[in-house]
């Protein structure tokens, strides 16, 4: 699936296949786009995130059974992030769930829409109506310490200070859009779910106040605040506990697909755990062995060059008893140090919305 904004993106835009989608990885240099995101305000083309609407009398019951967090009282003024799991507790996707008057709207992670849609349809015992809305809706986002200012200039300044995970339907340029305070990077973050025919105009207007950032810059900024990136972290066989995404699962909820498996993994205390690391200039490959005191204790799950740290930043999945910050390991012959999260402190944490 290609972005609906493809004809607007600059000629040199580098696209990449992420799951079922072709998304802009970068429009120019990722490091520049990263700095825009971390220091000013970035506009993001999230058309790789699939929008799936669930409606019908049992829509909420269905969503409550399929999502790992509690969405029973998710009103149309709220959204929340949740994992969707299979019966074995494996991550199917990480979604943003928007409460709607007639059901619930799910936004998949980048490129995971097809898998999510199939999973929902396979589990549709309640007979709900599941509709892929990606033919008529798309998602644009703003992230950055001054993203709130862009909201003011673009739509309405009062929306900028909505509480986290609040949602409003608002009018933009004569078009009804869903506006939400969200955020993946620790910076001020907002999402706009817009009809496809209005997306181009909104994108162009946003570019007058913000810089475009691609998937590479976004994922780096997510990694830096330990926001799970399912396509990198949800490796085959890894439990939610090993990934460290417990906070996207509500075990106080009585029932949801995957609950027993997650609880069993938690209670066993077995397996590995994920920890961030930095060190060296080379980027280790996924699966590279991690050594501690000369012993093999695990492997690299994901690693990139962090423009913020000016060094390699990665995640390693290692023996639980060694998954802690402040330790020195060896990866590919290079000494690395494990880190406390967040690995970069978002600028938004010290900048008030005015």
């Amino acid at each position, binding site marked *: 699936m290609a972005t609906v904004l493809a004809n607007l993106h600059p000629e040199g835009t580098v696209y990449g296949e992420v799951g079922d989608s072709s998304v802009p990885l970068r429009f120019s240099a990722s490091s520049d786009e990263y700095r825009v995101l971390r220091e000013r305000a970035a506009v993001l083309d999230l058309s790789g995130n699939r929008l799936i609407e669930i409606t019908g009398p049992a829509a909420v019951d269905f969503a409550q059974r399929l999502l790992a967090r509690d969405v029973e009282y998710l009103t149309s003024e709220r959204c929340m992030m949740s994992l969707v799991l299979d019966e074995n507790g494996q991550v199917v996707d990480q979604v943003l769930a928007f409460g709607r008057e007639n059901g619930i709207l799910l936004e998949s992670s980048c490129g995971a829409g097809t898998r999510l849609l199939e999973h929902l349809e396979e589990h549709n015992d309640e007979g709900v109506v599941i509709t892929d809305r990606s033919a008529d809706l798309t998602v644009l986002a703003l992230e950055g310490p001054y993203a709130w200012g862009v909201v003011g200039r673009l739509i309405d300044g009062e929306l900028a200070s909505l509480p986290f995970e609040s949602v409003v339907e608002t009018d933009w340029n004569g078009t009804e859009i869903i506006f939400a305070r969200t955020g993946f990077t620790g910076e001020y973050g907002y999402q706009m779910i817009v009809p496809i025919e209005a997306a181009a105009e909104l994108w162009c207007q946003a570019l007058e106040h913000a810089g475009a950032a691609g998937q590479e810059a976004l994922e780096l900024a997510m990694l830096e605040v330990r926001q799970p990136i399912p396509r990198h972290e949800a490796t085959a066989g890894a439990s939610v506990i090993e990934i*460290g995404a*417990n906070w996207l699962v509500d075990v*106080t909820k009585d029932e949801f697909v995957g609950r027993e498996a997650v609880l069993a993994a938690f209670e066993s205390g077995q397996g590995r755990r994920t920890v961030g690391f930095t060190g060296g200039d080379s980027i280790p490959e996924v699966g590279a062995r991690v050594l501690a*005191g000369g012993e093999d204790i695990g492997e690299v799950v994901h690693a990139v060059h962090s423009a913020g740290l000016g060094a390699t930043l990665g995640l390693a999945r290692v023996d639980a008893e060694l998954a802690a910050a*402040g330790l020195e390991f060896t990866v590919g012959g290079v000494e690395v140090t494990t880190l*406390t*999260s967040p690995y970069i*402190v978002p600028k938004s944490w010290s900048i008030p919305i005015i």
Partner: protein
Amino acid sequence: MTLDQLRAKAAERRQTCTQIKKMIVSRLDLEIEPDWITDDQPLFGRGLELDSLDVLELYVAIEAEFGVALYDSEMAVFGSVSRLADEVNPALRATT
């Protein structure tokens, strides 16, 4: 460092983190087991979804439990349990 030394260092951090998690769950009356909170998950907004009132409660709790006053600290110290552990037990801080 040898593997045993690394294990010992990790265990020290785990002990402090566990103490912080128990304190958070108890003080804020959360309905989860302390160990369900991971060392690295976000605490405010995303993650544990604590708010500014919770921060005030934690300032008091941390001073009572660890004898460390964080009132003038930046929000970054509440970035995660592991980051808080660095504040209440400076011996844990990474050397790099």
